[in-house]
């Protein structure tokens, strides 16, 4: 798995990974509201997927905590605390609200439920911004609703892609999400795809 902070970084990171000699490449596309993909990848997800994709497949994941290209040197590197740290220092009630409910999707904005963090302090390299995702999906001839999904290709010069829809995995608890992904990467579909990529 190759974590990058944004789509623009994919092309820069390509210089690195091309030397690895992967047969298959791709990126995982999901919105912040595609629960619980962000939470899973924030935890063990990257390591799991890195193991399951093997040494012949390199997949980009746009994920802020492990950004290779943009590093935040502040001790509290989260926008959330940078904005509200001074408030929390003096207000225990507010701190309790944020700690207990700051990351729960409970506020409806433009038809989708968002967390307090997503509304007031979205991550700076939040690739999962819906407008950005829409542009990506459009460029790859996909529908605006085709997320979360996996977009795969052999080489940057390919004129077609493979698309794997993962929308049925939204709102699955993390454990179930993990199991579903594990089954897919261990299954015949992925193996056949890798074989096809090696043979092209």
């Amino acid at each position: 798995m190759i974590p990058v902070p944004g789509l623009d970084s994919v092309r820069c990171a390509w210089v690195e990974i091309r030397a690895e000699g992967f047969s298959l490449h791709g990126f995982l596309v999901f919105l912040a509201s595609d629960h619980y993909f962000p939470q899973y990848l924030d935890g063990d997800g990257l390591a799991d997927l890195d193991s399951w994709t093997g040494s012949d497949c390199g997949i980009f994941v746009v994920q802020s905590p492990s950004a290779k290209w943009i590093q935040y040197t502040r001790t509290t590197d989260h926008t959330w605390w940078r904005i509200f740290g001074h408030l929390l220092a003096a207000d225990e009630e507010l701190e309790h609200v944020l700690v207990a409910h700051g990351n729960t999707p409970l506020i409806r904005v433009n038809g989708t439920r968002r967390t307090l963090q997503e509304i007031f302090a979205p991550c700076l390299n939040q690739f999962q911004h819906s407008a950005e995702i829409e542009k990506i999906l459009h460029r790859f001839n996909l529908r605006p609703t085709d997320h979360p999904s996996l977009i795969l290709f052999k080489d940057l010069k390919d004129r077609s892609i493979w698309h794997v829809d993962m929308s049925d995995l939204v709102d699955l608890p993390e454990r179930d999400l993990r199991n579903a992904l594990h089954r897919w990467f261990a299954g015949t579909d992925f193996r056949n795809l890798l074989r096809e990529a090696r043979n092209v």
Partner: protein
Amino acid sequence: MSEIRRIELPKQTTVDQQLHAAAVDLLPAEMAEDPLVRWVSDYDGLTREFHQEEESFPAFEKEWHGERWQTLMFCYLASSALQTKLPFYFASLFHIARIRQISQGVLGIISGREQTRVLSEWASSLAERLTGPEREQQAAAALRRLSEASQEYHSRQLARADQWWKRWRMEVVPFRGCVEALEKAWGRDRYGEARGEVPRAVLSLWAMSNSPSELQMSMSHEGVRFKSVSLLSVAGGCETFGGQAWVVPLLLAGIGGPRWTSERFGDELRYLLHDWLQAERERRIAPQVQIALDRLRARYGDKNPFDEFGVGRRAATLALRELAKENNLPNGRPSPWLHEWAETLEEMPWSSSALPKPSRDDESLRSATRLADSIIKKNVLEERFLFTEAWGDFVQRVFEEKWVETVGAMAGATNKNASQPAVVWTLDEFVAFVENVVARLNDIGYSLGTPAKRRLQTLLDKTSRGETVYGEGAW
């Protein structure tokens, strides 16, 4: 998870092209349409390897007979120089765009016209998660404080992004100029017409690539660093070529060729040394520049102290001159605050330009006043202030030398070349124009006087005859 679908990309494009287009799509329209942005984002030399069939540096065409090693050397040096800086400008561009988009998005949601109603709805949703008899009030208070803090933070972020964007453009313009100069030099050198220009252009590009970037220092101060280029390598320059010493003899060897002469060798060496020393000086002084920037930033915060001296807003004072001196960085360049303000000043036209008479409405007089104010402010920062001169006398002198004299030269040029009487400036018209501008300037705090009528007459008469009027006592 569903089955795998094979999808053709639009219009026979490639994954690479679509990724590139999608990345540029992410930029706000104002940035995406900027030619500099297109230049940086279209430059694809980074993803090409040197041994590929395509040239790693687009400007270099196939080598000509007998000089293959020089072509390869300059290709390598130029590409290396570009790879020092272009990844940073590419990455920083998207970082600035993200800051803008995120902060504009947040402010759009939380500070719209229906903010009160929206916060009230949100408070109800939050209150459902809380306990206690006062959960509604608790939720409302929490959201109000979050909203206020967030608005303040994101407004500052937007101001910072704007400042960085201006800085980005300031740095990329000369960088692009170096690349274009190299391309031109190479194009001419194909026919042996510009021997020596190519190595000089390569060294200029190298010097530019390895000069410290104030944008990068500013971003680094905010905790943003980019993996591809460290501050040290940008400041040092050694890493690009693995050491400075061997660059000079290689470039000097590159200067040679069929038309080499000893005199040209000396000239080329002088130019090379000049560029080299300049880059070295920039590198060594970079830490002092950073300290100065940090100090100014701590003092000013997010406000620009020059704002109160905006064009047409307030007269130039001694405080402005002292503020400008404070904002001259150790490397001789203006601070971002001074630069941003200086960019708003109007430029004086050439003294040989024709000067149409002002129209009867207020607009042309307002424009003339803005120009006069701009010229005074620009020059009170640059002109030498004589130690026995009062500030008011200094400003009057600057006004007369830099504005009245030039306007007089323009009116005189118009009179000299006039093809019809209607465009000719009479003395009364010229005096009235100067008086009106003086009155408008004094309204914003100046204490100027209109030069005596006989002096204005001398000025107009001389310039109408085509005589020059520069120098003390000329009018």
